[in-house]
């Protein structure tokens, strides 16, 4: 008899916990469960108790009771105060979850129907699988090639939509080695339920062994540098001196003055937009329509590689080695802008070949 009910014992009520942040959210979850349970009991006992106590009895008439302002205020205010606790607690954890720690290692994720393509900074690529060392904070920067996806790792209680046209991010710091599921949780078409994978959290040794494979095409920044040359970017974006286009060295995460007076931070989203649609924001002192649109020419993965390259130029140190096709022979460019005609010709020459 008991055996037939055994399966109930196998039902888990909370999934695996892979990080401290997940444990923090579980605590809030249990608080919410406890409040809900108390409220449910109060209502059920009230309804059932009153229904039985005041059931129709011969000779007992209903007594008119119109209401009570004191009660109305009490049962509005007390639940609201409890709800403020929920709000505050939830908002605090949410705020922390939206702000990755400084030491977070950045990993790039591109979602497309129906797979997750992952690029590590060292150039390692993975598909539907993410390997990370235990204890290391990981920030995922995510882009979509087509529709909206959502990257979710239940064991870390994290999730973020991956919206085409945007960079979205989330972070986690795994505390327990393990094999945890990845789900796409925004409906994305026929094979939505196959857009799944695993995060493998490994201890240092194991991760070292796994990572030593490395990427075949060099680091992400090196791949980006190659693209930078192949697409002709290096013709105008000179690294050391003023070219026809803004200097990229030391640009990353620095403020940029635009020609409409605004100042923006040169973060990932800005760089992505400036690569794909260069005319969206023009740096002060430069002309529009110089650089061709790369929308539809570069994949999201390529854009991520290019940004990684620009990032690698952030330091004050000498620019990255110019092996490859970076033309060292380019004549030093005067600080003044060249005539527009020449620039347009140059731009025409730079059009990516289709």
């Amino acid at each position: 008899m008991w055996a037939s009910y055994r399966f109930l014992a196998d039902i888990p009520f909370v999934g695996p916990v892979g990080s401290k942040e997940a444990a923090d959210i579980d605590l809030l979850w249990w608080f919410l469960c406890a409040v809900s349970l108390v409220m449910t009991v109060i209502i059920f006992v009230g309804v059932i108790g009153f229904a039985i106590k005041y059931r129709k009895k011969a000779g007992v008439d209903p007594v008119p009771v119109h209401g009570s302002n004191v009660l109305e205020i009490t049962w509005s205010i007390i639940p609201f105060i409890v709800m403020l606790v929920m709000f505050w607690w939830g908002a605090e954890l949410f705020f922390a979850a939206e702000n990755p720690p400084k030491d977070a290692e950045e990993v790039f994720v591109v979602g497309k129907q129906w797979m997750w393509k992952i690029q590590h900074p060292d150039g390692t690529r993975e598909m539907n699988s993410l390997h990370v060392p235990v204890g290391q904070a990981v920030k995922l920067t995510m882009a979509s090639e087509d529709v909206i996806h959502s990257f979710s790792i239940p064991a870390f209680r994290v999730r973020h939509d991956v919206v085409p046209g945007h960079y979205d991010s989330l972070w986690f710091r795994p505390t327990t080695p393990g094999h945890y599921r990845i789900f796409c949780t925004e409906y994305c078409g026929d094979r939505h339920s196959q857009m799944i994978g695993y995060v493998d959290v490994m201890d240092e040794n194991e991760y070292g062994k796994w990572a030593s494979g490395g990427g075949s095409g060099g680091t992400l920044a090196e791949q980006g540098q190659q693209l930078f040359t192949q697409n002709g970017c290096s013709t105008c974006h000179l690294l050391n001196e003023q070219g026809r286009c803004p200097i990229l060295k030391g640009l990353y995460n620095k403020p940029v003055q635009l020609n409409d007076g605004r100042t923006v931070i040169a973060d990932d989203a800005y760089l992505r937009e400036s690569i794909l649609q260069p005319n969206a924001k023009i740096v002060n002192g430069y002309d529009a329509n110089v650089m061709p649109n790369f929308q539809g020419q570069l994949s999201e993965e390529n854009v991520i590689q290019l940004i990684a390259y620009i990032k690698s130029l952030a330091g004050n140190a000498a620019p990255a080695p110019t092996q490859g096709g970076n033309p060292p022979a380019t004549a030093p460019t005067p600080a003044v802008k060249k005539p527009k005609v020449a620039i347009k010709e140059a731009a025409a020459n730079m059009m990516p070949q289709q």
Partner: protein
Amino acid sequence: MATTYTTTPETSAEEPVNYLNVEHGWKSWLFTTDHKRIAMLYLFSITVMFIIGGAFAILVRIHLTQPQGLFPPEVYNRLFTMHGVVMIFFFLIPSIPATLGNFLLPIQIGAKDLAFPRINLLSWYLYIGGAAFAIFAVVRGGVDTGWTFYAPYSTTYSNSYVLSAAMGAFVAGFSSILTGLNFIVTVHKMRAPGMSWMRMPLFIWAHYATGLIQILGTPVVAIALVLVAVERVMHVGIFDPNIGGDPILFQHIFWFYSHPAVYIMILPGMGVISEVIACFSRKRIFGYEFVAASSMGIAILGFLVWGHHMFVTGQSVYTGIVFSFLTFFVAVPSAVKVFNWTATMYKGSVTFDSPMLYAFAFIGLFTIGGLTGLFLSTLATDVALHGTYFVVAHFHFVMVGGMVVAFLAGLHFWWPKMTGRMYSEPWAKFAALLIFAGFNLTFLPQFVLGYLGMPRRYAAYPPEFQVLNVLSTAGASILGIAFFIPMIYLTWSWFKGPRVGKDPWHAKGLEWEIQSPPTTFNFDETPTVTEEAYNYGPLEEHPVV
């Protein structure tokens, strides 16, 4: 268990003239402007749509008994989408307002009809037109975007019948707008002498609040659907970033309507529950003014919380925090209603007729539905639960446990008024219990599945989730059967049920002072209202009619 109702022996061979037998033939129905006949047209139509939507639900649950699923994913995706589209746009939104509201709103305020009887008929034809588009989409091969029609999937990537399904929802939306408009004008202009705002039954307050949402919110979703069509057909970049749009824009426009829309779906149900609890406790609703005000509060605050559907979409952190905060505000008026209903029974004289059993089920299920909403208003837990079965379970607790159960409570309460006949009380009580049990078995496991991380809209799932899914499907089988029982005994009652007099429950309210079924113009003379709503006394004071 004590019961209340009384039936009249069938002494007279001839039924008195009423709105049902005054005319015969299909023309007398399809060209009627009588709000009661239009209500019956709606009742029949939404029942058909409920059966279609329910069939999709059963297929969804059968599919999910196996981790790899039974149908190909393309089929499953169409099943859950059509379930959502049919149930939301063609059952839940019109359900109570278009049937019970249409029938009762004029009568409860002492009017002969709605303010615009022809527009009322037009709104039924619009509903039928919208339903025809939706059924066309189903027959041609379905739609696979989810009922939310999220762009750019719906505008660029889906190969299914998005346009006809969206057109169906668009047209049905105008039906909803016209119903809301009619209700608001009727409440303002056509109340009988003495029917002051503070004497109106709470059912009227609930419909007034619903009407406000219908006319303010529905045009916005209509715009969203038009923009989807424009982008899909003409490739104008509105939502698809590849042609210059932004997918987040769609979500803002869509949820600006679709969050208030859940209050279109639940407020009329709350109105029904107030009437039923008052009658079967023989008490005025505790804190009448607060319950009335809470309907208006929900209608207004409901427009300020749409962003809580978008906590993980990339709207700014601060926007998320503001929407979370506002969402907790809207929880207060809902809680106030539940407390007041409970307090209404205090020192009452409670009987356990079938409408009251449905009302008890409503309070229990709506309480759980409301409390689980708090998990989703809280930012950090929403991040963990968004897009999982927890959301599915929460939504169904409010919409099925709340709205559908309230609809059944109201249908059982006013059925004798609408048809002049009674149904089988034992079967009605049995059905109420079976629905409650089947419902909980279906949806309680889904809360657990959600926190374990099982995503919604998955045609296949990891094997560790199978036990809970099988439990849920078992519950759904019970629920499916339980929903058929009222259809059977109510149909029987329509033809063979024992006749009842004008007030079988000894209830208060203008609708119980006129004959059952009512005559075409409801009242021979315009009534004058001299007392507040729910002026209940002991049962014995009322002579058996």
